[in-house]
């Protein structure tokens, strides 16, 4: 190796973070980029949440009080997309950036510069999404009233806003494909000597599987959106029967992406639980091999059951039977993971710091949501449930416990690691309880609304649906407010939290990441640790 290179590396060994904007905008450091991801996700959570608050406020009473129907649908579209693409996925990616190199004893991500690109594409994409929301309000054509599923022909009727939305999704899609490539390469090529795949921490495993899923399905969504653009502007007829096309084709493409997507949202959070629960039960994760197998099982099954979102479009009997059985079978791998969590708690020595509280709550609420998922999977019954508020209840019961709460648990679990400062346990617990209660108040009643016949995506409803909507909206206000408390707790910790008293912060915590001091040095493992 010639001298210049040697010089480069030597200099690299021990150098402090670059100063000023250069550090954040030009960053090639996994920790800084991770932080950027997390901040971005937090902002998006509040934007998506604010729109949710407006949605619930409108649904508080029958009649149109705050928004007209188009604005309402514009809001739910934005809410859904922002929450999924803007809040949950980036948050999970942020945690991956922070933790994976520390967990596998690597100095950084495998492709640090591309890592930064994956992040910076997100604000660009989000801006496009925002534009798609705002442009119509400034007189740029009709509002996006299609919902996040963007089904044609409705999405072909919509004005220029739809083009902004599509390109926004393209940018965010590219971002997560690049991020996934980076994560896979890091996991396959950067592990410390002696860390075999089957010794890899579960969080890394969940991300390995998630990244595979992303690489396989994101391009399909991109393809579908591209075809949509062509139908909208260049006279093609992929989705119009007049030209021999079929609107349902879009649905197949969308859900081929859409269903794996829900596991993309779920798995990283499961990964976090697989670290939180052993830590606070002081007992290793039960059945590591089985959990890893189940993760792979979920991914494989998840790829081939997409049409359970489309039972009502008219599919052959054989087709729906296949999709029904396939979908129900997913309860096996997911169930195995849930039971391994419970078995980890069993005969452990538990303490209940905030992350653990969330873990317990997740096991219960997620199982609930999963079970309503099984109900939805049953074709004849779904003929009733489909596109009713019952579905909305189901997916918030899986999305919040399955994705958001897991990430919250991660925040409280790792915040001391990241910052070297301890959060305020009492406030955090207050947040937890208000959050969980608010959550159930908001979404439990929606099951009844759905069963009683309230369709989803309506801004105005009949009086028979009033009571439960009132409850749901009140719950949502509490739920929303609780997130304000969350923001306070986190910020307070970062700027003024007391330094952590002991290291590792949690006595039960195991793994390479805990062998580094808190906060860890700018470059995690300049020298690879040797596993014993």
């Amino acid at each position: 190796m010639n001298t210049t290179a040697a010089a480069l590396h030597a200099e690299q060994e021990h150098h402090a973070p670059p100063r000023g904007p250069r550090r954040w905008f030009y960053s090639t450091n996994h920790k800084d980029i991770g932080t950027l991801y997390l901040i971005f996700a937090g902002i998006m959570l509040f934007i998506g949440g604010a729109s949710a608050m407006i949605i619930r406020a409108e649904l508080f009473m029958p009649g149109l009080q705050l928004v007209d129907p188009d604005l309402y649908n514009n809001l739910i579209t934005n809410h859904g997309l922002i929450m999924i693409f803007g809040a949950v996925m980036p948050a999970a990616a942020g945690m991956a950036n922070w933790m994976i190199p520390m967990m596998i004893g690597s100095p950084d991500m495998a492709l640090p510069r591309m890592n930064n690109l994956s992040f910076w594409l997100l604000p660009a994409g989000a801006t496009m999404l925002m534009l798609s929301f705002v442009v119509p309000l400034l007189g740029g054509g009709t509002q996006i009233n299609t919902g996040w599923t963007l089904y044609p022909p409705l999405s072909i009727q919509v004005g220029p806003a739809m083009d902004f939305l599509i390109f926004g999704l393209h940018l965010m899609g590219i971002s997560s494909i690049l991020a996934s490539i980076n994560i896979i390469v890091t996991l396959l090529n950067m592990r410390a000597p002696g860390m075999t795949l089957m010794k890899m921490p579960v969080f890394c495993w969940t991300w390995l599987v998630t990244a595979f899923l992303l690489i396989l399905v994101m391009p399909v969504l991109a393809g579908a959106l591209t075809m949509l653009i062509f139908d909208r502007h260049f006279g093609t007829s992929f989705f119009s029967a007049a030209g021999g096309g079929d609107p349902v084709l879009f649905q197949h493409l969308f859900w081929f992406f859409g269903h794996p997507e829900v596991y993309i949202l779920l798995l990283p959070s499961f990964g976090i639980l697989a670290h939180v629960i052993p830590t606070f039960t002081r007992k290793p994760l039960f059945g590591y091999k089985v959990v890893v197998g189940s993760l792979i099982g979920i991914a494989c099954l998840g790829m081939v059951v997409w049409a359970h979102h489309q039972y009502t479009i008219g599919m052959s009997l054989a087709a729906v039977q296949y999709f029904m059985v396939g979908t129900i079978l997913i309860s096996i791998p997911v169930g195995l993971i849930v039971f391994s969590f419970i078995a980890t708690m069993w005969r452990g020595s538990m303490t209940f710091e905030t992350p653990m509280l969330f873990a317990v709550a997740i096991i219960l609420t997620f199982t609930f949501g999963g079970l309503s998922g099984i109900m939805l999977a049953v074709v004849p019954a779904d003929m009733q449930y489909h596109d009713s508020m019952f579905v909305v209840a189901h997916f918030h019961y899986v999305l919040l416990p399955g994705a958001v709460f897991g990430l919250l648990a991660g925040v409280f679990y790792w915040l001391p690691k990241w910052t070297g400062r301890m959060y305020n346990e009492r406030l955090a617990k207050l947040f937890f309880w208000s959050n969980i209660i608010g959550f159930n108040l908001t979404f439990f009643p929606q099951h009844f609304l759905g069963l009683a016949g309230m369709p989803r995506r309506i801004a105005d409803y009949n009086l028979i649906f009033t009571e439960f909507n009132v409850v749901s909206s009140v719950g949502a206000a509490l739920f929303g407010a609780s997130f304000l408390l969350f923001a306070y707790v986190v910020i307070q910790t970062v700027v003024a939290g007391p330094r952590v008293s002991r290291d590792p912060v949690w006595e039960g915590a195991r793994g390479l990441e805990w062998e580094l001091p808190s906060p860890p040095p700018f470059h995690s493992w300049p020298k690879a640790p040797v596993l014993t």
Partner: protein
Amino acid sequence: MRAGLIGRPVFGWIPLLLLGVAGSARAEYGVNFPEPASQGAREIYDVHMLTFWIATVLMVIVTGLVAYSVWKHRRSRGFEADARFHEGWFGRWGWVSVPVLVLGVDLTIATSANPTLVRLWHPPADVELDVKVTGHQWWWEYEYLDHGVTVESRAAPQEIAGDNYLREVDNPLVLPVGTKVRFLHTSADVLHAFWVPALGFKKDAIPGYITETWTEIDREGVFRGQCAELCGTWHARMPIVVKAVSRDAFDLWVRERRAEAQRAAEEADPTREWSRDELMARGEQTYVARCAACHMANGEGMPPAFPPLKGSKAVLGPVEDHVGVIINGVPGTAMQSWARLNDLEIAALVTYERNAWGGGTGELIQPARIAAVRSESQSAAR
């Protein structure tokens, strides 16, 4: 819309317990499917309840395990972690026994749902009545294929609907009980979905394709539902009302509809002149049925989405423009084309809009004039 009587014992207590809104609890509480009105719906209901109970049991089991463990295995009670737990029998057999059990439950669910699925999925060979159901933005069109009768069904404005706000229509879908009816679903514009909970199923209406469902209603009554697939601005305002009547009543109804159609055709002859009162009366009818949903009975609309007509230049400006908007609609807005209406109806409507609500130009518009505008706009199109 009444809460399912069957539903009550199952769910009835939950809202009161869980949500503590007992005070405001009204008789109409809907907490479960409405009472089924057909065999199919009843079977679906049973499948639903089966999976519901299975889910409940599983939920209880999981909650029990977690609760016990949280209560027992906590350090505050001095419980030491059992590091060798995974070597016990569960450690060795858990990963087989759990999947086997779960698989068992899964197959139970699937197999018990399958018969219903098979029975409902394909219409039987001996259907007696074919109804083509076409979704439009934002109303339903019902064609009784073998009776040559067509019904346009639109949401009734609040004033008329009253308690059935958003669940009431001008012309319901009339069906005979004890008859195997097959529905042919399609759409004229975007996706819609036909959903009447009491009849048990839901099916998407796909432009250019036809999907099928069938039912056999077993009791008379009025069953309400709503469009269930997002179809744009007024998705919330395309209710479905099924009026199930005896076979005789149905035949009578069909005859009436035919006669009506006859009359309308005769009236529509363009040469005839109409008096102000006649026009205003008919105009009001049409307005309330067709336009009031957005522009409101008092013509004040719901700005910004739905412009007021009262005193607007849309209705006080040149007649041709006024008629043009009605015939062609306003692209890119919720204002659809009403070319479907016949000349008389439009003439009356225009007259009404130009003279109602205290304002008004006083002029009368006759069918002949509408015919003229139509032919013009057609030649313009060409």
